[in-house]
């Protein structure tokens, strides 16, 4: 009997067939159940022996059904998984990755540095007037120093700022020392455009004014920035130069390893100096000293990341913009 039951169980191809086998053997009217019902007709001795035999049979069939059920379930899961097989090598569904513009990245990297050094970040207008851009910064009218900053004038007598320094005047007129500020922004020069010169570019400049700050403080600030950008031990160099709004004035360079050539060399970054007394006079400050330094972001971006044509930064070609993903 068991043999036949096991044959039927093995032959059940799915869970439903197996259920029918279960009913046929162990159901209320199943063969084993029927035999159990027949026990009552036997003598007590026979009944015990036959009972034990039938129970063993029932147990064996039950176990076989159980095992078969587990196997069929596992096979069903396997089949389901098989049906759900994917080709993982096909491309995914996605929104393409965005990117900050390279100049934004450089700007924000610098802003991080200056914030960590305790500077406030301020911005100012791009359309300026002669007073803020030149006169209050000690560029007298008709002074040859103005020729170094070819200016876009507007037909209504205003100008596009040639540097971020007008914000020095605006900030100092609305704040009292001590303070440390940094000003990022777009500036404009009416110069011939080529691979390294644009009519529009970006500067970042710092201004620190207090009762007594010194040129050594200025150098310390420049050095702190250089170390944050280029790593510990970065050296700086100051050479005298002239900007109307500082005295003494200097240009600063950092000693770095050029990422392309691998050569160590001085990288001339920008200008700096102690705020000129005429500038303090123009904003009504007395009895303080201060320093300012500034530089162009394009140059820093170009030498650091190997941009060969400055105009690529402004064309809006997505083949260029995509390269800025994850640059920082």
């Amino acid at each position, binding site marked *: 009997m068991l043999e036949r039951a096991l044959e039927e169980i093995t032959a059940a191809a799915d869970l439903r067939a197996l259920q029918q086998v279960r009913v046929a053997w162990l159901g209320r009217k199943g063969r084993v159940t029927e035999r159990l019902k027949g026990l009552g007709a036997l003598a007590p001795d026979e009944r015990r022996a036959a009972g034990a035999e039938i129970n063993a049979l029932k147990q064996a069939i039950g176990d076989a059904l159980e095992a078969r059920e587990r196997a069929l379930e596992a096979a069903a899961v396997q089949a389901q998984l098989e049906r759900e097989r994917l080709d993982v090598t096909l491309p995914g569904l996605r929104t393409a990755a*965005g990117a900050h513009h390279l100049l934004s990245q450089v700007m924000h990297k610098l802003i991080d540095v200056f914030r960590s050094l305790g500077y406030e970040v301020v*911005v100012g207008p791009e359309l300026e007037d002669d007073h803020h851009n030149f006169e209050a910064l000690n560029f007298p009218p008709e*002074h040859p120093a103005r020729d170094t900053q070819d200016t876009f004038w507007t037909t209504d007598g205003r100008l596009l700022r040639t540097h971020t320094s007008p914000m020095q005047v605006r900030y100092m007129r609305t704040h009292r020392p001590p303070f440390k500020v940094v000003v*990022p922004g777009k500036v404009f020069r*009416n110069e011939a455009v080529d691979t390294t010169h644009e009519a*529009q570019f970006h500067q970042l400049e710092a201004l620190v004014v207090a009762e007594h700050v010194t040129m050594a403080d200025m150098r310390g600030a420049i050095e702190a920035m250089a170390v944050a950008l280029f790593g510990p031990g970065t050296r700086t160099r*100051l*050479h005298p130069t002239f900007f109307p709004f500082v005295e003494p004035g200097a240009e600063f360079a950092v000693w770095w390893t050029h990422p392309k050539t691998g050569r160590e060399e001085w990288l001339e970054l920008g200008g700096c100096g102690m705020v000129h007394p005429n500038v303090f006079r123009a904003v009504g400050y007395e009895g303080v000293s201060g320093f300012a330094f500034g530089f162009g972001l394009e140059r820093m971006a170009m030498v650091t990341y190997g941009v060969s044509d400055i105009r690529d930064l402004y064309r809006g070609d997505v083949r260029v913009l995509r390269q800025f993903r994850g640059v920082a």
Partner: protein
Amino acid sequence: MRVPLDALAELVPGLPALDEVVATLDALGLPVDAVHELPGAPAGVRVAELLEVWPHPEADELLIARLSAGVGHQTEVVCGAPNARAGLRSAWVPPGTWLGALETTLGARDVRGVHSDGMLASPRELGLFDHAGGLLALGDDALPGTALADLWPPCTVLELEITPNRADATAFLGVARDLAAKLRLPLRHSADPGDPAALDLGDPSVPDGLRLEVDDPVGCPRFTLRRIEGVRIGPSPVWLQRRLAAIGLRPRSNVVDVTNLITFELGQPAHAYDLRALEGGVLQVRRARPGERLVTLNEETLTLDAGDLVIATPDGRGGSRALALAGVIGGAGDSVRPDTTDVALEVALFQSLTVRRSARRHKQVTDAHYRFERGVDPNLAPLASARATTLLAHLAGGRPHPGISASGADVRSEPIAFRPAQVAWLTTLEVPLDEQRGMLERLGCQVRAPGAEAWAVTPPSWRVDLALEEDLIEEVARLHGYEHIGSTVPSMAFVPPAGDPTHRALRDALVEGGFLETISYAFTGAAELEAARAAQVRVRLSEPQGLERAVLRTALYPGLLAAARLNHAERDLALFEVGRVFLDDEVERVALLLRGQRLAAPWLPGVPVDFYVVKGVLEQLAERFGVSLELRPEAPAHLHPHAAASVVWDGVDVGHVGRLHPEVAAAFELGETYLAELTLPLASRAPALSSVPRQPFAERDLAVVAPLEVAYAEVRARLQAAAGPWLISLEPFDVYQGEQVGAGKRSLALRFRFRHPERSLADAEVEARMKEVMEAARAAGYTLRT
């Protein structure tokens, strides 16, 4: 400015080697941009004198010259130069000579049937300076037969960057003064040997037959005119030609070369007039008459006005004729000519502003104007005149008149109150008092009352840039060396306020959302803005770099449209820009552009960008910023009239979003494109955290049918009000338009969720609220769909 190293060595005896000179100049603030090594004359080339010149028998334009290239060495060459004439000393290039400038070796050859034994060469062929209009012309100092390379050796030239304040450094002398002061070396001043007897200054009390009439002593504070007779115009000696060639000038003739040398050597422009040009020996300095004309020595005709200062002479008819534009450029007719014998040497000072304005107005950039505009030493003219006079006597055989006609006098600078202790206060450089004094004196300053806390320091006349104590502090720091400045960090009682002036949170959110950031130009073309239907131009540039950069942008999106046009090959674009636009005020904005598919794979259907995709971007931004966002139907001219809205951010109207108007899209050769442009800064609110509610919510759905033109926002507002205080959300989950609801209508299926803050809501309570909702819907004329 180009400075020959040997010129500096003459002025500063003991000058160190090139590398140290370059490093010293860099440290002085006279940075060396480049060092040029100029080649000397080619080996093998010899000085030759043309003995006889006759026409070539076969060619009108050619000549045959017999020349002497040293004692007992005569030969013949064919040449075509206009200045070939008997008596000329020039450069003979024997056959077989390598000419580096031409990259060729000269061979012996026949020229139109006449044998030419080598050739006579122009300065350009010799690689000496850029002139090919004639043969190299040498003076009596060059003896025939001499190897030219011995006379004209290679030369080192420094190219310096001169900042606009350093008027004095536009001359060899000024550069030499700085070097001598920094290196503590003596200075040999070519025009001021220190002994007045050694200088031919001329005596103003001796009548010289010249008359100087200076009408405008402000425009011309100083003028000297020296009469020199009997000059012989001819080539300059080799040393002078070499020096001029080294600084990039073409040697012309001894008299002109001397005036050019003075300009570069001393920083004092000078000009020699042929005395015949001065009518009656009268030289006038006056303002030009409006409309007066002047033909310059470059043959340009300038139309002058009363702002111009001119050098003039009586015209012989009772009037006055302009000879030169003062301090800028000479006229065509007054200069020395080959037959000039008597000259009047002008060495004068002109006011910076006058010269600057004239030069700009007439677009004349000259060596003289460059120096006057920055400020020439006001006391230099008599010394420079003496130096030039001596040179003209030696080099051109001139006889200087003992008299001189002059106007103006020496000026003395105002002393500056200088506190030497301020050097350390401002720069931290500790420079002993006697060293500071020595430095200032080496620079030419006079220092009085040393020992007192404040000194009276009178700067020299040539340092027009020194006016304040800080200027002198820089001089001391410069000579001491900026390299000694230390590095400190000030401790300051300043706490920077927080803020995001560069809109970093916004940029980060957009970049995370897959947008590429662009930066376009603040200036653009008026036509481009018009094609984009942007706001009317307010600000125009007066001298733009072309029409397409002539006006300031009034919106950001035209720049994004231009970028989309440039990237037409890209199906999917998501761009943004943060920048400033120029309307009645300058406004900072952000603009977005989306087109193509937002979520895409090449082999799967993606999510095509439509209005709701762009709106979703804004909604997500608003969520991130913790503010409300509402769109109200409204279309500016550049957007689709029925697919655009104004953006109300945190209750404030900040801009527009929508589909680009198809006509504008066509103008930019674009397909379906979506834009948003919002004014910055976008408000944000700090999140207010609250505990998560534990009560379950009850959910009910309701579909209402309303006319198409009734906005969802309107339906929502009505039903929301009716739903009462326990409503926590109301969202559309299906929008249907079609036969089942009838034409001109649509069905909005809405899901309501209710929750009581403290307890569970009974079904009956929720049903009661929904009854109110349905009544409100019916009252508004909507039908309920079941």
